[in-house]
C-alpha cells in the first residue's frame, strides 16, 4: 500500500498531467489541421481538373472548325488551365475557412465528443488558454488527469478514421478524372496510329500537328481524240471537264492521308470503298503529291482527306454528244404518183467538238404483203476536218432507183464525230419517207402530197423490221454469237421505239391528246380502260367496252383494239429480240403486222367532242343575284417527293451553316448542285446563283434572297411577277 501524496506533490503531478494533456491536445489539433488541409487541397485539385475537362469539352463543341483553326494551340491550352487554376483557388479560399476555424478549445470539444470526459477537458483547456491558475487539487484536475488519457487515445483513433473518410472522396474523384484523361489520350493515340497505318509508306513518320491542306493546282487533260490542249487551273474547288478527261490534282504540301472520289449520279455510295478507290490514284511527287481521276458523264466529287481536314473538288463531267442533224429538205413526208425529177437533199449538221464525216442514208423498200425487199443507198458522203457546223447537200436521182408503185423511200442524214467509243452510235436526223402511190389509190381527186398517217408509218416500219429480222435469222448460223446478239438488240431497240409509237396511237385515240399537258400513260392512276400486265396492255375489267369517260365533260373515245394487239405482239417480239431469239420473234412480228393491217382497215371515227353546256345565270346577268361572299377555296400544296424533301433539308442546313462557316456551306451547296444537275436542272441553276452570292458576299451581305429563290424552285412554286400595286417582297 502506497503512502498518500502530499499537496505539493499532488499539485506537481497535476501540473505535469495538465501540460501533457495540453501537448496532446495541440498534437491532435495539428493533426486535424493537416488532415483537413489535405482534404481541401484534394478538393480544390479535383474541382480544377473537373473544370478544365469541362472547358475543353465546351470549347471543342462550341467553337466551329474555322475558329479552332484560327486560334493557336497555346491559347486553347492556356485558357482552360487558367480557368481551372482560378476555380481551384476559389475552392481553397472557400474551404480553408473550416481549417482556420480549428482551435485548442474546438479540438478539446472534438476530443470530448469521442472520449466522453464530461466537458472537463474543454473547461481545463479554456482555463489553461485563459492563463488561470490550475488548482491541482481540484476535482477538475483529477478528472482531466484520470480521463484524458483514454479520451486522447479514442480521439487519435477517431482522427485516423476521419482522415480516411475525408481523403477517400477526393482521391476517388481524382483517380476517376485521371482515368478519363488517360482513356482519351489512348483513344487519340490509337486513332492516330490507325490513320498512320493507312498512309503511304513514303510519308514522313513521327508525330505531326493537324494542318489543313494547302492550295493545289488542277490540270485538265482532254481526251486525245479531241486534239485539245490541257488546261491548268489555280486552286479551285469546281471544274467542268469533258467526259474521259484526266483530272490531275497537284499539291505542294504534305501528302493527304487519302483522296477519295464519289460519283454523284451513278449510285456509288459512301460505303463502296472499292469503287471509290478505283476512281482516284494518289502518289507522291517530289515534296508534294499528285492525284488523278477520270471525268465521267456525270458529276464527280473528289475529297482529299488529312487528319480531320478535307478539301473538296467537284468535277462536272460533260458528255460528248453525238452529232445533231436537221433534215431540212425534203421538209415533210409525201406520197407521189410518179417520179419526175431528182430530189434535193439538204441537212444541217452540228457537233459540240468536231465532225468527221456525214452522208445521206436512203433506204428503199419495195414489195407488198409478205414479199419485201430493202435496198440501202448512201449519197452525199462528205468528210470534215473538225468543223463544228456544216451543211450537207446532195441530189437523189429517184429515177435511178427504179421505183414502182407502193415503194417507199426513207431518207435520213447521218454523221459521225471523232469519239472512238463505238457504243455511242452515230448522229442521225429524222427520217422522211416518200411513197409511190398505187393505182388503186387513185381517185377523182388528184393525189396531193400528204404524209402517210401514223398507222401506215407504223405498218411500213414493222414490215421493215420483220424483213430485217428474217434476214438476220437466215444468217444466224454463220454469225458469231456476239454479233448476233448485238444485231438482234439493235432490232429490239427499233421494235421498242415502234411499240411506243403504236402505244401513243392507242392513247391518242383514248384521250384525243397528242403530247398535251395531260398526257396519259400506263399506270398514271387514271382509268384509261386498259391496264398494264407484265409490260403488256389489256382491257381493264372496269371498262370492258373499251370506252373511256373522264368526268362529265371529257369526250368519250374508243380504244383501238387492233393496235392494242399489235402493241402486245411487239412487246413479245422485242423481248425475244433482246434475247437474240430471232426465230421466236418472227411470229410475234407477223402478228403485229396483221393487227396493224386490221387497224388500217377498221372504220375511222372522227370525234368532234361534245359542245360545252352553258347555262346562263339570268339573275346574275340582270344584276339581281346575291353575292354569297364565299371565298375561293385555297388548297394546300402537296408534299414534296422524298428526294426533294431531302434536298430541301440540306439546303436549309447549308443556309444555317452559311452564317457560321461560309466555306463549309459552299462545299455543301456545291455537292448538292452537282447531284441536282441530272434530274433537277432548274434547281441546279438556282443553286449556282446561291453559290455565286456566297462567293461574292462580304461581311454583312444579305444572301437570303438566292436561298429563298432556290427553295421555291425546288418546291416548284410559281410566283406571279409583282405589279406596281404589289407590296413587293422577294420576287
Amino acid at each position, binding site marked *: 500500500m502506497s503512502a498518500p501524496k502530499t499537496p505539493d506533490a499532488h499539485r506537481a503531478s497535476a501540473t505535469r498531467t495538465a501540460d501533457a494533456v495540453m501537448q496532446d491536445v495541440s498534437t491532435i489539433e495539428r493533426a486535424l489541421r493537416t488532415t483537413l488541409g489535405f482534404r481541401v487541397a484534394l478538393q480544390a485539385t479535383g474541382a480544377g481538373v473537373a473544370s478544365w475537362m469541362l472547358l475543353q469539352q465546351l470549347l471543342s463543341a462550341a467553337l466551329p472548325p474555322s475558329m479552332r483553326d484560327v486560334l493557336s494551340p497555346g491559347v486553347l491550352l492556356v485558357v482552360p488551365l487558367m480557368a481551372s487554376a482560378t476555380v481551384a483557388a476559389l475552392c481553397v479560399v472557400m474551404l480553408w475557412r473550416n481549417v482556420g476555424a480549428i482551435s485548442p478549445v474546438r479540438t478539446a470539444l472534438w476530443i470530448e465528443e469521442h472520449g466522453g470526459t464530461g466537458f472537463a477537458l474543454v473547461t481545463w483547456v479554456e482555463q489553461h488558454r485563459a492563463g488561470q491558475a490550475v488548482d491541482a487539487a481540484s476535482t477538475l484536475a483529477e478528472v482531466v488527469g484520470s480521463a484524458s488519457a483514454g479520451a486522447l487515445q479514442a480521439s487519435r483513433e477517431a482522427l485516423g478514421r476521419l482522415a480516411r473518410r475525408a481523403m477517400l472522396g477526393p482521391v476517388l474523384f481524382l483517380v476517376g478524372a485521371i482515368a478519363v484523361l488517360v482513356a482519351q489520350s489512348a483513344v487519340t493515340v490509337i486513332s492516330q496510329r490507325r490513320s498512320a497505318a493507312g498512309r503511304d509508306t513514303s510519308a514522313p513518320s513521327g508525330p505531326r500537328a493537324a494542318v489543313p491542306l494547302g492550295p493545289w493546282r488542277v490540270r485538265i487533260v482532254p481526251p486525245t481524240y479531241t486534239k485539245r490542249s490541257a488546261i491548268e487551273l489555280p486552286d479551285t474547288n469546281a471544274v467542268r471537264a469533258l467526259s474521259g478527261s484526266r483530272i490531275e490534282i497537284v499539291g505542294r504540301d504534305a501528302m493527304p492521308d487519302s483522296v477519295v472520289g464519289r460519283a454523284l449520279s451513278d449510285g456509288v455510295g459512301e460505303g463502296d470503298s472499292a469503287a471509290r478507290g478505283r476512281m482516284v490514284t494518289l502518289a507522291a511527287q517530289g515534296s508534294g503529291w499528285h492525284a488523278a481521276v477520270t471525268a465521267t458523264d456525270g458529276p464527280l466529287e473528289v475529297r482529299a482527306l488529312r487528319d480531320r481536314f478535307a478539301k473538296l473538288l467537284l468535277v462536272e463531267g460533260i458528255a460528248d454528244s453525238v452529232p445533231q442533224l436537221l433534215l431540212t429538205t425534203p421538209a415533210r413526208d409525201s406520197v407521189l404518183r410518179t417520179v419526175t425529177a431528182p430530189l434535193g437533199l439538204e441537212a444541217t449538221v452540228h457537233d459540240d467538238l468536231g465532225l468527221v464525216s456525214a452522208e445521206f442514208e436512203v433506204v428503199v423498200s419495195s414489195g407488198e404483203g409478205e414479199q419485201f425487199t430493202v435496198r440501202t443507198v448512201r449519197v452525199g458522203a462528205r468528210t470534215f476536218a473538225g468543223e463544228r457546223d456544216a451543211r450537207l447537200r446532195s441530189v437523189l436521182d429517184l429515177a435511178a432507183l427504179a421505183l414502182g408503185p407502193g415503194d417507199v423511200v426513207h431518207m435520213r442524214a447521218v454523221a459521225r464525230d471523232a469519239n472512238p467509243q463505238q457504243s455511242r452510235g452515230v448522229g442521225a436526223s429524222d427520217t422522211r419517207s416518200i411513197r409511190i402511190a398505187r393505182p388503186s389509190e387513185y381517185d377523182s381527186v388528184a393525189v396531193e402530197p400528204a404524209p402517210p398517217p401514223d398507222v401506215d408509218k407504223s405498218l411500213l416500219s414493222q414490215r421493215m423490221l420483220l424483213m430485217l429480222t428474217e434476214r438476220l435469222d437466215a444468217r444466224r448460223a454463220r454469225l458469231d454469237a456476239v454479233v448476233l446478239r448485238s444485231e438482234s438488240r439493235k432490232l429490239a431497240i427499233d421494235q421498242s421505239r415502234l411499240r411506243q409509237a403504236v402505244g401513243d396511237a392507242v392513247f391518242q385515240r383514248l384521250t384525243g391528246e397528242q403530247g398535251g399537258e395531260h398526257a396519259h400513260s400506263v399506270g398514271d392512276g387514271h382509268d384509261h380502260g386498259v391496264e398494264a400486265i407484265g409490260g403488256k396492255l389489256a382491257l381493264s375489267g372496269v371498262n370492258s367496252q373499251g370506252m373511256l369517260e373522264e368526268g362529265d365533260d371529257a369526250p368519250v373515245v374508243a380504244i383501238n383494239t387492233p393496235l392494242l394487239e399489235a402493241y402486245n405482239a411487239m412487246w413479245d417480239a422485242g423481248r425475244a429480240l433482246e434475247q437474240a431469239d430471232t426465230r421466236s420473234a418472227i411470229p410475234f412480228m407477223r402478228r403485229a403486222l396483221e393487227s396493224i393491217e386490221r387497224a388500217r382497215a377498221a372504220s375511222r371515227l372522227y370525234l368532234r367532242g361534245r*359542245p360545252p353546256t*352553258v347555262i*346562263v345565270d*339570268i339573275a346574275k*346577268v340582270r344584276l339581281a343575284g346575291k353575292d354569297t361572299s364565299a371565298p375561293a377555296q385555297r388548297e394546300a400544296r402537296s408534299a414534296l417527293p422524298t428526294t426533294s424533301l431531302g434536298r430541301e433539308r440540306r439546303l436549309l442546313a447549308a443556309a444555317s451553316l452559311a452564317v457560321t462557316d461560309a466555306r463549309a456551306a459552299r462545299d455543301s451547296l456545291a455537292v448538292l448542285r452537282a447531284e441536282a444537275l441530272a434530274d433537277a436542272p432548274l434547281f441546279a441553276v438556282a443553286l449556282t446563283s446561291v453559290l455565286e452570292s456566297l462567293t461574292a458576299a462580304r461581311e454583312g451581305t444579305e444572301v437570303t434572297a438566292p436561298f429563298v429563290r432556290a427553295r421555291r424552285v425546288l418546291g416548284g412554286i410559281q410566283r406571279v411577277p409583282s405589279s406596281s400595286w404589289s407590296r413587293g417582297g422577294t420576287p
Partner: protein
Amino acid sequence: MVARRYAVSTAGKLSPPHAVGVPGAGAPFVFATAQYDSGDWDSAPMVPANVIDAVARYTSLAVAPQGVVVPLSSEACFQYPLLFLTGHLPVRFSAREVDVLRRYLRRGGLLFVDDHNHDVDGAFHKTVREEIARVAGALVALPKTHPLYRAFFVFDNGPPTTSHEMNGWGDNLVHEHLDAVLFGTRLAVLYSNKDYSSEWSYHPDNKRFLSVDNTKFAVNLVVYALTR
C-alpha cells in the same frame, strides 16, 4: 348605228300572236337550235347561250337560261317561235324535215338561217338557199327599213357588220343586207351570210371584254319573233 331601247310592254307576259311559239301564257322564251340530218347543225354551240344572255341583259322578257335543240323533223318545233339554223356543210332537208318546216313557217314561226362559212357560193350557201326556196319560196333582199331593225334596238344601217366581214374572211365582202322570205309582211325566213354564228359564238362571260356588244341584233330577232 343608233341604238335606242324600246320598252317591252308586257314584260314576260306576251300573248301569243301566232299559233307557233308560246305553249302557255307566262312561259319563258326558249331559244331553239334546229337539228337537221345533213351537215353540221351544231357548229356554233355557244350562240344560244350568248343570245339568251343578251335577251336577259337588255329586256325584261322571261327567258329560259338554257337553249334547246329541236329536230327539224319533229313537230316539237312548233313550240318555239324562233328557230336558229347554221352549219358549214351542204344542207339537204329530208321529206319529213321539209314538211315540218313548211308547216312551222305557215303557222307563224321564224327561221333564222346563218351561213357559218361566210364564203362565195359555198356549199352551205348554195344548198341551203335551194332548200329554203323549195320549202318557203325564193329569198329576197330585206330592206333596211324593215321593222326587224327597229324591234328593240334601232339599226338605221340595216344588219350590223360582223368582224369576219371587216377582216376580210371568207368572201371578203361586207354584205349590205340580209335575205328573207316574207309571207305577206311577216318575216318567215331570215337568211344571213354575215356569219353571225362565228360572231356570237363565244362564252357570254367574255362579253365584258367587248367595247360594243355585238349580240344586240339577236335581241331584235327575239323580240321581233315574239311581238310581230
